[in-house]
């Protein structure tokens, strides 16, 4: 019988998994029943499938899982390490040999083995203290001068303020007195004017009375004796 192996090749996987349509499955069934080669392939497929499940998983031998996988660390330049080592060594040697570096007026003095005696150290301390005292004195004097100057300025300002205030008070007092005096003068003048007016009025009245009196007197004498007397005018 002529067999279309290609159809089996195409669908043998789905056939075993049961995913074929009934028509195709029926056709494959027919081929497997009638074609020796396809039947054998089907059997091999099943056997291989079964065989694969009999494989016993082998444990993985121990191995370095990160040896090749981990990125190599960034290599730092050697000068840094050498520099750090040289600095450390130098520091240790300075301690061991008691290196001393003294800064004086004439320059730097470098000594080994602790050559600085206690007297030198005391002198150094004294000189440092003296310089410190001098610096303190200078500082105190300058601060004192500043304080005195500030106090003097304050005094001047207060004095000027006092004078100014006193002057204004006196001016106000004088102005007050003058105002009072002028008002009193005005009142007095007013009173004098009233008195004078009163006196003038009285004088006028007196004069009128005298005149009337003279007229009456003269009129009486004339009638009696054609008087020869004449009245005096005031």
């Amino acid at each position: 019988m002529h067999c279309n192996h290609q159809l089996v090749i195409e669908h043998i996987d789905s056939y075993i998994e049961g995913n074929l349509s009934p028509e195709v499955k029926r056709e494959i069934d027919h081929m497997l029943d009638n074609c020796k080669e396809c039947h054998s392939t089907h059997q091999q497929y099943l056997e291989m499938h079964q065989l694969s499940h009999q494989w016993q998983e082998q444990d993985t031998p121990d191995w370095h899982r990160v040896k090749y996988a981990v990125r190599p660390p960034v290599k730092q330049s050697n000068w840094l390490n050498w520099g750090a080592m040289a600095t450390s060594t130098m520091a240790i040697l300075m301690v061991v040999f008691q290196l001393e570096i003294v800064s004086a007026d004439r320059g730097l003095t470098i000594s080994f083995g602790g050559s600085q005696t206690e007297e030198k150290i005391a002198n150094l301390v004294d000189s440092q203290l003296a310089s410190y005292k001098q610096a303190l004195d200078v500082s105190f004097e300058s601060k004192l001068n500043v304080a005195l100057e500030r106090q003097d300025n304050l005094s001047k300002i207060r004095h000027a303020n006092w004078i100014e205030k006193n002057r204004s008070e006196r001016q106000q007092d004088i102005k007050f007195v003058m105002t009072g005096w002028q008002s009193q003068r005005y009142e007095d003048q007013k009173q004098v004017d009233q008195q004078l007016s009163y006196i003038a009025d009285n004088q006028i009245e007196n004069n009128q009375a005298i005149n009337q009196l003279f007229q009456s007197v003269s009129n009486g004498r004339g009638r009696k004796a054609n008087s020869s007397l004449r009245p005096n005018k005031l």
Partner: protein
Amino acid sequence: MFQINKDETLIDKALGGSERSWVGLVKRYEGLVYNYCLRMTFNSSDAMDLMQEVFLAVYRNLPSYRGQGQFKGWMMRIAANKTTDFLRSRGRNPLHRAGEVTDDSFDNDGLFQSRASSHTIDPASHLAQTNKNQQIKEVLNKLSDDHKQVVELKFFQHFTFEEISQQTGVSVNTLKTRLYTALNKLKGFSEIQNAL
């Protein structure tokens, strides 16, 4: 199977420099890859070398993994490529005795050795297990490298033809033909089942 950390989580952390995550990812799949390599090379030493090459390539290509598909499929594609290269290079090596299946569990005058286990295994059960694996190796050894690869990925890795096609770059129809041819080559081994 329940996984505490997803593959993608481990990958992200490994890419961030986490050595622990990388080791966790490797431990999750090293058994799969090692046994795959073992069936493809028939030699534990070669399998070990090949597995290390695979994981090295996986690590180097990890930044290019964009989460497309399953990580297992992506990793097995690398494994397939590495295996192909390895088998080709070994085929060119005249010192390699082609066609000979070496059972490296028995070395040094028959003394039982197991590189695999640091723990104690019953020798009898280990022998039976080794015999089964040995017979499977002998079956696979009858196949060419291409046929062996499709049988491996189809029956032992349980990938679909589409997945195998993506991993190997071979068309689905070609893969089916190769599988059919491979199964026909094994006709003489129909007694395998009886032997097992």
